[in-house]
């Protein structure tokens, strides 16, 4: 049976210090939770940069190519004579190409972000804690899963005690 050790801190500053401490102690898969992104937290947790930019680049390139080739194909396959302009009027294809590039990039930004975050995920053991509900308003938490290498509940309790922790609780995950 897994468990999650949930520790609450009173300010973003204390949360940041606690995360730095955990990283220095070699923990890597712990997670911090806050009502808004905290400046410097990615570095404190030693997180790599988000991969989202590359996903969006691919999405944008797809939209660009798809948009331009759609128009080229349609104009040659279904030729319309419009004030004597050439069928392949690439200048006139720019607006639609641009719009489709933006559209595809935006789709990949939004759905790419959800995919990287594994959302929607309506079940999570951490939601079992009623205490955790204030995370979306004014709570700053650290959660450590018992799968984490070197997990020792009592040792972590002692560590958090030195970091001015506000509240500690253990959530049991029976799945």
């Amino acid at each position, binding site marked *: 049976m897994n468990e999650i050790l949930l520790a609450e801190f009173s300010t973003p500053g204390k949360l940041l210090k606690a995360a730095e401490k955990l990283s220095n102690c070699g923990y890597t898969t712990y997670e911090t939770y806050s009502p808004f992104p905290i400046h410097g937290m990615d570095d404190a947790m030693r997180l790599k940069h988000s991969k989202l930019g590359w996903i969006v680049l691919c999405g944008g390139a797809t939209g660009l190519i798809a948009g331009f080739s759609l128009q080229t194909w349609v104009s040659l396959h279904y030729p319309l004579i419009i004030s004597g302009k050439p069928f392949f009027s690439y200048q006139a294809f720019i*607006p639609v190409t641009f719009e489709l590039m933006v559209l595809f990039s935006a789709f990949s930004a939004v759905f790419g*972000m959800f995919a990287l975050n594994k959302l929607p995920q309506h079940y999570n053991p951490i*939601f079992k804690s009623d205490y955790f509900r204030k*995370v979306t*308003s004014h709570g700053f938490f650290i959660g450590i899963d018992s799968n984490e290498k070197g997990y020792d509940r009592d040792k972590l309790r002692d560590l958090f005690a030195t970091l001015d922790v506000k509240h500690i609780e253990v959530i049991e995950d029976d799945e």
Partner: protein
Amino acid sequence: MTASTSSIVQVKRPDLVVPGETFESVTEIVSRPMEMKLPSWWLITFCVAVSGVLLLKSMLAYLIWEGIGIWGLNNPVGWGYAIVNFVFWVGIGHAGTLISAILFLFRQKWRTAINRFAEAMTIFAVICAGIFPGVHIGRQWLAYWLFPIPNSMGMWPNFKSPLLWDVFAVSTYFTVSLMFWYVGLVPDLATVRDRAKSKVRQMIYGIFSLGWRGSNRHWQNYEKAYLLLAALATPLVLSVHSIVSFDFAVSQLPGWHTTIFPPYFVAGAIFSGFAMVVTLMVLARQLFNLKALVTIGHLERMNKIILLTGMLVGYAYGMEFFMAWYSGYQYETFAFINRATGPYAWAYWIMVSCNVISPQLFWFKKCRTSIPIMFIVSIFVNIGMWFERFVITVTSLHRDFLPSSWGYYSPTWVDVCTFIGSFGLFFTLFLLFLRFLPVISISEIKNVMPEADPHYGEEH
């Protein structure tokens, strides 16, 4: 040397949130409109707005039944209220994207108090806008011909036409704005979920908040997505109104065929949109008691943008006349002299007084910070910007090259009722938004509070 270093004084920026508020109290303030007892003013205005929707629906049903002959269109004025209303509504939407995307890229932190509100306005305005070209096509049941959908007739749209570019621009704009808005809403919907007292409420907000739990790994990707969306929406919003202006500028009609149109339309769009944000925000902060988060300072900044964009628009009006004279092209000259002195001079001068003269009041700090004055000016700007589109569309068309094809366009009661009905739709959606969604971005506004800085309270 010592004297100069000691005289350095840290310049304090004005507070974005009234001092004394905490993270918890901000959540309270924003959640209150969703959790309080339904106010009676809400119910009354909602009923009025819904009757507007019914009016709109019946006008559209009548139109589809009878055909566009029930509108005031004639020969030579083949474009009337439909295009005027379309450009008017799309323009209003632009302020939302400007606030949410462009001001985000420029790190204008004051935007956090108004961006959610303005984005909602964008979406509802674009919905209203989309109706008009959709029904203007005459055979509305063939509206899908606008899109390149493979069909048994082997027929495809004309990609060289600005009207088709517009289809892509406006539908992309709507989709991207909606996604941007939703992404911003996810953490706040989770806040509402976590505060919910009833099971149903928790379920509904729970579904839409996708299981958000404020995890930092999530925030990392989230912030990246938000930045990328802002970076995509910025050129998008500029392209949309540029393409809307191509509907006119790419034709060869005097009064329309000018290269100034794209920037002129974009400036006008931002101008009208900010006016609409001010109109609605003044009311909402009063009715829902949001004054601690939306301060006079926010409104004053918006009024400064109204002043700036109002003058850009005024410059464009002047430049159009200058070019008409300087080009030496007699039809162009005629179109503009006719605009200011012809049968539609009344509309032209309403436009100039509302758009160019009335914002000049905002040079004075007293006027910029006075709620009644800014409310009245914002209404004037809304009226003036509707007339701008009316003037551009109708005055350029009504006197064709030959005097034998001159005419005068007046709307019919159907035109007027459809336009009024579109306001009903806008306000219905807006009132629903005010009641059921967080009108201010809870997570973003916390981020600009001094307490959000991890080094807050530490010695430097």
